[in-house]
């Protein structure tokens, strides 16, 4: 609870004593590139396989010949948009980007780089953390969209190549009874998750105390805490918005 209060104060500190817009523009751009290039490959890989595996497993469960095959791709679509792309990818994102944010900030803390910024009169939390959060909020939804597309493509490839269903069936299922609101829901979720993961990980890294060991601990705890926060907020958002 005390940690939560500190987290809220930390978030508040991001918005006081800021640098010029130009500085942030540059920093955000840099972070976007780091995040985007750093995680795109992993996202493509994981989501393609996820789509492929869900297709196979859904097909394996639908043994009743009365159920048309295109239901499979419809199910895969719903799973991908609602849960796999935004939420499961958030866990991957926490492991990849969150841990490196915490590790990077933790290292800067224990090697006094953060103190060096403060002595120069720079609000270090705002200077270092705000660009990371903004970049996450910008990049994560894009990554989720990419992951969603890859997942459906993965499903398509496996579905048609292994003979589970025809290409026409797959496409038909994908387009059947499509609710565009689910896309908005997925994007809202990804915005929330991006904020939670980047801010929690930065928080954990920024307040690291001690040495290299503690940086490792901060990294790990950044991932676990953000994952828990993601899952909790996933539940509440589903309750609230669906």
């Amino acid at each position, binding site marked *: 609870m005390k940690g939560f209060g500190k987290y809220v104060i930390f978030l508040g500190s991001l918005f006081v004593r800021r640098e010029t817009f130009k500085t942030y523009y540059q920093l955000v751009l840099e972070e976007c590139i780091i995040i985007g290039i750093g995680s795109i490959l992993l996202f493509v890989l994981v989501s393609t396989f996820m789509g492929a595996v869900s297709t196979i497993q859904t097909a394996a469960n639908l043994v009743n010949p009365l159920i048309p095959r295109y239901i499979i791709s419809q199910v895969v679509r719903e799973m991908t948009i609602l849960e796999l792309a935004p939420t499961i990818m958030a866990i991957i994102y926490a492991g990849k980007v969150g841990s490196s944010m915490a590790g990077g900030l933790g290292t800067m803390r224990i090697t*006094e780089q953060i103190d*060096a910024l*403060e002595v120069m009169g720079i609000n270090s939390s705002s200077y270092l953390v705000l660009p990371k959060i903004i970049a996450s909020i910008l990049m994560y939804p894009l990554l989720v969209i990419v992951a969603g597309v890859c997942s459906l493509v993965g499903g398509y490839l496996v579905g048609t190549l292994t003979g589970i269903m025809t290409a026409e069936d797959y496409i038909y299922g994908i387009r059947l009874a499509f609710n565009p609101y689910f896309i908005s829901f997925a994007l809202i979720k990804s915005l929330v998750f991006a904020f939670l993961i980047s801010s929690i990980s930065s928080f954990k890294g920024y307040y690291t105390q001690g040495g290299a060991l503690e940086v490792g601990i901060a990294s790990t705890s950044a991932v676990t805490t953000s994952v828990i926060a993601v899952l909790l907020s996933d539940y509440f958002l589903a309750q609230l918005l669906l």
Partner: protein
Amino acid sequence: MIKINHISKAFNGRSVLDSISGEFDKGKTNLIIGSSGTGKSVLLKCIVGLLQPDQGSVYFDLRNFTEADKEMKSEIRREMGMLFQGGALFDSKNVEQNVMFPLDVLTTKPLEEKLDRVNFCLKRVGLENVNSKMPSEISGGMKKRVGIARAIVNNPNYLFCDEPNSGLDPQTSIVIDELIKEITEEYDITTVVVTHDMNSVMGIGEKIMFLYKGQKLWEGSYREIMNSGVKELDDFVFTNKVMKNLKGKVTSL
């Protein structure tokens, strides 16, 4: 000149600094010495404002820093340069970007002017042709030098160094010490150096403050340190047998 008035600081109810007062003179290298864990770094952090003292105040040339508003604080901070124990260079920036960083954030000078100044400072600390090296590619002593270059790049009035020669060989230590002393005199700035290295004390200790368990027990210059009559200081100064034998025999240096 920097003046501190009755600075006290406690962590979780445990007192670390107990009402420290003193002055650091302009144009001199002022040392804060004492054995490990006596609160030297905490005192330095209180002076530069990285830590808020529980009590007491810090004056930078008669400007009250502790109670200054944000604007005043950042104005005074612009006049500070600090060398950290490990150099604290930004890992993601190369040497040139590191040294230029204070100019980038604190001034609006054109790039060329900034580059000139950076190269001048790097030359001043004896580093040339390393502009594009990353901090991980240079040695500890070079990091310290880059740290000094970064600390002086914006023409500070106040220079702070936390253990400038820890982790360096004795020869390099002396070079760094001399560099700090020269810069201090050359630009007539107020320099505060935290150290527990006796070589530095004897080499550049024009004005020395001795801390012991969070209290200031003695103040003076290296000329007087051998005959202070303070037992704790003697224990600190005369750590080995050779030095102990010297005690009493040396009256003036």
